[in-house]
């Protein structure tokens, strides 16, 4: 090992990442950031002090061993780095791109106390992309059991739960209402932020674990949650249907043509490929001057999508100030670079009719911030007499979402008064064997938080099913499985299967001994 690094010996500046020029990128849907090259990643990895406190691990909602994987990068053992990340996070290529690192791991980075923090997200993405390019997948040895697990919703929460349950040996089926799996990753996040090929790759990895995907299945209506347990033979069910029900402001003019939710714009553009109309049949509302109300990540996506669809001018209207803006810093930064006009402390009052059922603009009012409300953010109140008009032909509302009502309408699950599913600390719901997590429990949050919830629910589900959690560690390239601290080799006559050492070729994984549970897929990976 090299000599000990100090804050003075590490590269002082954060390694910049290459990005498409703002002028160019607003004309295409290709990814904005092209990610680190090898030497850039190595340089940035050197900036990690490998400090003993490891505050970043606590800062990560799923507790990735961040210094561990960064050290593997410095050793140029990228496969090793991938295995460390995937021990806790299934989707490094996704999370490296969409996590708000600046409020999580990077916010507490020791280097960040003096210099700019280590670009953990970019390094995670580098490893995730290397895995996709190399066709790596972290498939452990899976011993199949007799349990059948159903997952409702194929978004990040469902995917994380599905992976853990498949690894535990259950036959896992994920149900998705849309024609393609991925949930919000697919319909919500645009290609320039998260390309579809990345989602496809991550879904393939799940399929390799034996997870079965059933699209075009609207759970609740095609069959109920109760029927999954009573009739379809599922032993446990996880609900991760998200909070996709868009909020509309209820101001005059909000049902005019030319007023829509960000969800609708993004779904038409991303999932339905409306941006390629007429090659794809789904039409898209294209505005010349577009106003997006809200300043979260969804709002940023809606604005930047609008630009790429050919809008001349895009406005961001937010009732609080830039400090309270809930979007990732990088997204706001990118949006600014691309020429979005921000109107902080502004709230729409009325959408104005063009006389033909469309929009000619909207009237808004200036706001000021007073004492904090229950969310801890300073409360905006309108300034009397400060109304003004903005001319636009499309108004997109991205002011939050509510719980999807379908599961609530069709099952006896206990909901809270806002319509979200009630779950305890272990994410167990009011019905035995039914677990829920992600936005449908907490309300709108982030991809990584949903994944964390999916993993937590998987842990509870395993306890509910009586599955023992094998504790494993690496020993000279040989994986020893321990049950409750007892080394299996000492206590019974079961032949110990030697798991592949980290860094070995995937061929070793798919040998006969590590065959997939055939009940789940009917075929080997």
């Amino acid at each position, binding site marked *: 090992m090299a000599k000990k690094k100090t804050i003075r010996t590490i590269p002082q500046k954060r390694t910049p990442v290459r990005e498409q020029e703002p002028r160019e990128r607003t004309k295409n849907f290709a990814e904005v950031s092209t990610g680190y090259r090898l030497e850039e990643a190595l340089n940035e990895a050197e900036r990690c002090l490998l400090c003993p406190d490891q505050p970043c691990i606590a800062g990560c909602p799923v507790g990735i061993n961040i210094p561990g994987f960064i050290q593997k990068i410095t050793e140029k053992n990228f496969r090793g780095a991938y295995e460390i990340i995937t021990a806790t996070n299934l989707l490094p290529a996704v999370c490296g791109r969409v996590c708000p690192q600046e409020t999580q791991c990077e916010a507490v980075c020791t280097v960040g106390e003096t210099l700019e923090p280590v670009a953990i997200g970019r390094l995670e993405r580098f490893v995730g992309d290397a895995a996709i390019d190399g066709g790596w997948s972290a498939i452990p040895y899976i011993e199949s059991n007799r349990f059948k697990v159903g997952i409702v919703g194929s978004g990040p929460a469902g995917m994380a739960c599905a992976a853990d349950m498949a690894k535990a040996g259950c036959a896992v089926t994920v149900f998705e*209402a*849309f024609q393609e799996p991925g949930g919000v990753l697919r319909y919500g996040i645009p290609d320039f932020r998260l390309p579809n090929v990345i989602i496809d790759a991550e879904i393939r990895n799940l399929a390799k674990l034996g997870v079965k995907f059933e*699209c075009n299945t*609207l759970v609740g209506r*095609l069959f109920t949650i109760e029927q999954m347990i009573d009739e379809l033979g599922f032993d446990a069910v996880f609900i991760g249907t998200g909070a996709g029900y868009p909020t509309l402001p209820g101001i005059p003019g909000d049902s005019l043509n030319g007023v829509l939710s960000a969800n609708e714009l993004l779904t038409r553009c991303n999932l339905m490929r409306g941006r390629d109309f007429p090659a794809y049949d789904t*039409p898209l509302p294209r505005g010349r001057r577009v106003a997006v109300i809200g300043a979260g990540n969804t709002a940023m996506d809606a604005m930047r999508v609008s630009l790429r669809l050919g809008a001349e001018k895009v406005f961001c209207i937010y009732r609080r100030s830039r400090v309270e803006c809930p979007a990732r810093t990088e997204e706001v930064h990118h949006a600014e670079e691309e020429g979005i006009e921000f109107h902080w402390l502004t709230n729409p009052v009325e959408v104005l009719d063009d006389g033909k059922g469309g929009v000619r603009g909207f009237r808004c009012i200036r706001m000021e911030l007073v004492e904090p409300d229950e969310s801890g953010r300073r409360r905006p109140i309108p300034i009397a007499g400060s109304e003004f008009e903005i001319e636009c032909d499309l108004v997109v509302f991205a002011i939050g979402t509510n719980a999807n009502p379908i599961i609530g*309408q069709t099952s006896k699950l206990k909901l809270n008064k806002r319509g979200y599913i009630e779950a305890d600390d272990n994410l167990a719901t009011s019905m035995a064997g039914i677990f829920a997590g992600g936005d449908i429990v907490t309300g709108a949050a982030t991809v990584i938080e949903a994944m964390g919830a999916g993993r937590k629910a998987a842990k509870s589900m395993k306890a509910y099913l009586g599955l023992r959690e094998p504790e494993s560690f690496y020993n000279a390239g040989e994986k020893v499985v321990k049950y409750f601290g007892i080394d299996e080799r000492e206590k019974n006559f079961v032949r110990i299967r030697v798991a592949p050492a980290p860094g070995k070729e995937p061929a070793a994984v798919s040998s006969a001994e590590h065959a997939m549970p055939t009940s789940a897929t009917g075929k080997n990976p």
Partner: protein
Amino acid sequence: MAGFEIVGRQDFSEVTYLLEIRHPMLARAAQPGQFVIVMARPEGERIPLTIADFNRGAGTITLVIQAVGKTTREMQQSCRVGTTLYALVGPMGLPSPIGRAKKVLCVGGGLGVAPVFPQARAFKEAGAYVFGVIGFRSKNLVFWKRKFRTWCDEYLLCTDDGSAGIKGTVTEGIRQAIEKHPDIEECVAIGPPVMMKAATEATRPHKIKTVVSLNPLMVDGTGMCGGCRVKVGGRVKFACVDGPDFDAHQVDFDDLTSRLKRFAEEEKAALERWSENCRLGRVAVSSPSGAGLDRKRSA
């Protein structure tokens, strides 16, 4: 995924056709008033279609489609027995409440005859006296006359031009029905927005509880996009999860009609482009029943 197999097809007229699709689970779950979303091919759009019938024994559902836009015309050509639909999801929406009304008026206008059929049958099965009124523009567009009749105690066929049944729109039928049976407690009216609006106004003075099934534009059908929002009693509702059935006397039909035109330009352009391609033989045309389309020799 192999898709969803079309096992039956029937052409009622040059524009109206019926598809029977195998989906045993969906056939089992479907209730009167619910709808499905169909994608004919991966590049297609998601279109909502009300379930016209379901056969739990055979495991099939029936859709009746009118070839009006690009997608429905294309489906008219491509959807043959033995072919598959890329996506079919449902049943969506709240099932129609089949209450304990003793005397019910079931009104279907044009294509609306199909979705009102399962409701008429459900009312009949629940023991109600069912008065059916179905209306078409003219005789050559009439379909399901007998099928509908078997579930009605009394029945009236109206055509705009008088070529079959009584002359006049369904409103005339409704008037006659109410005149004869002032004790009608409930009315279900399904059809084009203009027809539903007229039916609503016909029952309003008699204070007959009236239910309409709304058909706004939709993307997902699961309450996610808000594209299908309608105004009912001054409040915004999503037709996909709060409906599609609503209290007719509360519905803002003008708002519905206006919102249906959201993509009128794009739809028109798409249809024109498609028709032009058909004419030039750039798309495979398999024995179209639609008029004005050349039959191309197969390449």
